[in-house]
């Protein structure tokens, strides 16, 4: 390629979901990247392309990863014939180890009253008790392995500026059957209320759920009915669970897929132009964008603010989560 191809800032670590020939062009898209792009192209540029994230550990991310790993472990143990009790004990033990700081010889502490080591273990135990006799049966692949923590990627029909096809990718928690129907299962944790109709209403339309549902059909050739959302509300004194269903018809699937076209057009355009516009209408969403303080400064001052308040990490959706 010529030297005129816009590139990433110096020092940006290589990300395998981007095209080497066109460094700003992300060819493999997961829900996190797509949501960020839809919300604000400038936020997407700073967080996904440049890799800036606020300093400090995200308790929500750390808690979510440990919660998902624990429930995956339980499912795998159960599929290997372990009893509920033994699988719970093994899962809890591993979580206690995973949340132990060996260097400091003390438990991990995220400084959050809702999401901490105790509420994590409590939530795992309470969830597994609530769904001990789950009517949802775990599906198994032809090789006998359970369909848990499934990394997927599939090619779309939308072409990149380089001539290849965009990929959609992600990680599905689990696929199971209930009532003779196949369901993709996704687990959510939140400090917010999960009661009432509004909580589950948010999952249709919903890019992540539609992507997972579509992947179930395309990648595993299963006639999935939609997604089961197992929601956990994490409070200081209790954990509370609700199971919701969000279904997709074929016409909804086609509509969602068609909707991607316009976004992939913009993705090609911005990568080609090397410019990602701000969407000021989203600066105040969710309590305020973390980059609001940066974008509010004169352009010549922004690098200094980024360097002082953020650190860098790679968000690469093509990295496959392995067995635990």
């Amino acid at each position, binding site marked *: 390629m010529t030297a005129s191809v816009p590139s990433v800032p110096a020092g940006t670590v290589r990300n395998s979901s981007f095209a080497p020939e066109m460094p700003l062009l992300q060819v493999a898209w997961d829900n996190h990247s797509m949501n960020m792009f839809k919300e604000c192209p400038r936020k997407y540029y700073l967080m996904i392309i440049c890799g800036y994230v606020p300093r400090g550990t995200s308790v929500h991310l750390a808690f979510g990863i440990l919660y998902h790993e624990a429930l995956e472990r339980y499912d795998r143990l159960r599929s290997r014939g372990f009893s509920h009790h033994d699988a719970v004990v093994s899962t809890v033990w591993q979580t206690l180890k995973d949340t132990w700081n060996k260097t400091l010889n003390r438990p991990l502490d995220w400084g959050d009253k809702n999401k901490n080591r105790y509420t994590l273990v409590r939530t795992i135990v309470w969830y597994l008790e609530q769904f001990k006799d789950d009517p949802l049966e775990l599906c198994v692949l032809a090789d006998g392995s359970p369909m848990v923590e499934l990394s997927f990627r599939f090619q779309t029909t939308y072409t990149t500026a380089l001539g290849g096809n965009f990929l959609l990718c992600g990680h599905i*928690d689990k696929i199971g059957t209930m009532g003779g129907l196949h369901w993709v299962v996704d687990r959510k*944790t939140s*400090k917010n209320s999960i009661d009432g109709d509004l909580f589950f209403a948010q999952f249709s339309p919903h890019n992540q759920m539609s992507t997972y549902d579509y992947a179930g059909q395309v990648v595993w050739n299963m006639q999935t009915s939609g997604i089961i959302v197992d929601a956990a509300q994490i409070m200081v004194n209790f954990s509370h669970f609700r199971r919701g269903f969000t279904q997709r018809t074929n016409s909804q699937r086609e509509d969602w897929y068609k909707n991607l076209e316009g976004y992939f057009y913009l993705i090609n355009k911005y990568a080609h132009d090397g410019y990602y516009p701000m969407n000021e209408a989203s600066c105040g969403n969710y309590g305020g964008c973390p980059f609001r303080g940066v974008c509010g400064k004169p352009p010549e001052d922004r690098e200094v603010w980024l360097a002082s308040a953020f650190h860098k990490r790679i968000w690469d959706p093509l990295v496959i989560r392995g067995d635990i």
Partner: protein
Amino acid sequence: MINSPLSTVDPASLDLAWSKDPNLMVVADVELVVDKLQRDRLTFLANPEAVKKQRSKKTSAADANVNSIEDLGL
């Protein structure tokens, strides 16, 4: 007592379990932790008024911010 592989968790208080190196625990220690949490759940569920009150707590605007962070495709 802490860090002794033969020690067990006091079922009356889980404090020790949270400050004890889990790599040095034995199965019985972990079973006590699990049992205590399972009994806590039953105690909580046995008090429906408390459950209702706790669930109806409003969330602040700052809490709403977690939606964007929690929604990481996990």
